[in-house]
């Protein structure tokens, strides 16, 4: 059956919402930025005036200010964005129950079934755009196609407030000339590999022999080839389908650069406590601990290692993370950001292989649970490790409750 899939992308989402609330800044360059004091001062979103002056998402706010003097920097208000995201979803829900959110401002809708009620893909896309403007006061670009990949490419083609239809008659003209890097899941290194073999556009990729690609990229080669030829058949997930958790992690850009093992230890403990508490919340234990490190020159890497037994105890995770860190980092540069993640999850009530020599696991698990219930009643700061007091500025954040937005993957 031929599907009709819409990809809706809310244009400059954070910036649009902020500009809606403040009509006086609508006609000047605006960026929404993180907290400069906490060193999260990068551009998260920009409006079209700022874009015209060359401001890019992800660059530092001072760089943006150099490009356009008089730039208005608005602090983030995630509660507001989540509200708008929810309202957008309510509009989608009038047309289909197959809504797959991709981040806070993008979603795929499978509207194959609404064709005879609400009109075909193009009509429906226009209706949704009109409702966005009238009811939410923000604009959206919509891509219409028969698969998720082309729909997403379509929503990127015309902005703002436009509909792009990619069908079986025009996809070779519209999609194939695009640079291969535009394709979902072609990142920096895949792009380099492809370009080394003279694959520059999506068309080049589509016309290559699938066997060559498989040799070059393994299974991914096949997947990408299918993407490029519009053969992707992944369904749009229904809204109520919960994704299965694959890993639990937290990371942070610290208030100042970390310069020695003690700094790192503090941050790792804060992160490990959050990871462990979230594992317990979901009734999971992790078998593998991963750390990610980013130096102040933005060079980053990851290392992982296995625990002896699955665990949701913060000190187990922290010790393993610290061990990994000491074995892999030699302090040639100070560190800007750190992450700790627990992966290879198993359910906490699983039977486990007991350790003959390593003391009383159950007692330590009960201790952590007791800490959880204390924190639930009296707040996150009511009980802490002594080390946290060594540097309040560094440890004064709560990764478990502060963060709002979860990154998502297409392949859940």
């Amino acid at each position: 059956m031929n599907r009709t899939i819409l990809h809706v992308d809310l244009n400059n989402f954070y910036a649009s919402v902020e500009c809606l609330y403040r009509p006086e800044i609508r006609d000047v360059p605006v960026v929404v930025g993180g907290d400069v004091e906490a060193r999260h001062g990068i551009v998260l979103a920009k409006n079209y005036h700022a874009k015209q002056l060359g401001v890019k998402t992800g660059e530092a706010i001072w760089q943006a200010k150099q490009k356009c003097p008089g730039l208005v920097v608005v602090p983030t208000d995630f509660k507001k964005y989540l509200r708008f995201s929810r309202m957008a979803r309510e509009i989608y829900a009038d047309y289909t129950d197959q809504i797959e959110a991709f981040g806070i401002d993008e979603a795929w809708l499978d509207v194959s079934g609404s064709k005879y009620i609400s009109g075909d893909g193009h009509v429906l896309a226009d209706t949704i755009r009109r409702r966005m403007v009238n009811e939410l006061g923000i604009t959206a670009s919509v891509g219409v196609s028969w698969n998720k990949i082309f729909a997403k490419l379509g929503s990127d083609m015309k902005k703002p407030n436009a509909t792009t239809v990619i069908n079986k008659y025009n996809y070779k003209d519209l999609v194939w000339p695009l640079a291969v890097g535009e394709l979902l899941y072609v990142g920096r290194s895949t792009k380099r590999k492809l370009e080394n073999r003279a694959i520059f556009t999506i068309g080049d990729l589509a016309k290559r022999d699938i066997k060559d690609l498989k040799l070059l990229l393994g299974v991914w080669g096949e997947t990408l080839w299918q993407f490029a030829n519009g053969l992707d058949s992944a369904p749009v997930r229904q809204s109520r389908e919960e994704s299965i958790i694959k890993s639990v992690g937290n990371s942070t850009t610290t208030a100042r650069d970390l310069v020695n093992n003690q700094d790192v230890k503090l941050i790792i403990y804060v992160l490990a406590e959050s990871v462990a508490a979230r594992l317990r919340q979901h009734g999971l234990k992790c078998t593998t601990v991963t750390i990610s490190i980013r130096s102040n020159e933005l060079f980053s890497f990851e290392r992982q290692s296995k625990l002896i037994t699955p665990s949701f105890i913060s000190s187990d995770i922290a010790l393993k993370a610290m061990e990994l860190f000491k074995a892999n980092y030699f302090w040639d540069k100070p560190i800007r950001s750190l992450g700790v993640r627990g992966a290879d999850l198993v359910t906490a009530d699983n039977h486990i292989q007991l350790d003959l020599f390593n003391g009383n696991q159950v007692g330590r698990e009960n201790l952590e649970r007791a800490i959880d219930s204390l924190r639930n009643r009296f707040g996150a700061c009511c009980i802490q490790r002594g080390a946290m007091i060594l540097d309040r500025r560094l440890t004064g954040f709560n990764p478990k409750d502060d963060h709002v937005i979860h990154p998502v993957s297409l392949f859940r």
Partner: protein
Amino acid sequence: MGKVFVEVIARHNADGSVRPLSLKWEDDRVFEIDMVTDVRQAASLKGGGVGMRYTCKISGKQVYLFDDEGRWFVEKRK
């Protein structure tokens, strides 16, 4: 451009619908709302905000009254 937050007296019906009855303007004048001709979710581009929009008739004039999550405002003309 802009908006004026106003105090509103409204009747909350048993079916969940709301009928604003009167509003108090910045200068403490109170205006009766004679009629509500339309209620819908809408954005206020002029005022800057979003919410339930009540199209009200107040002494013969049409006024948009917005309920933005419990804060009511009127678009300011200028």
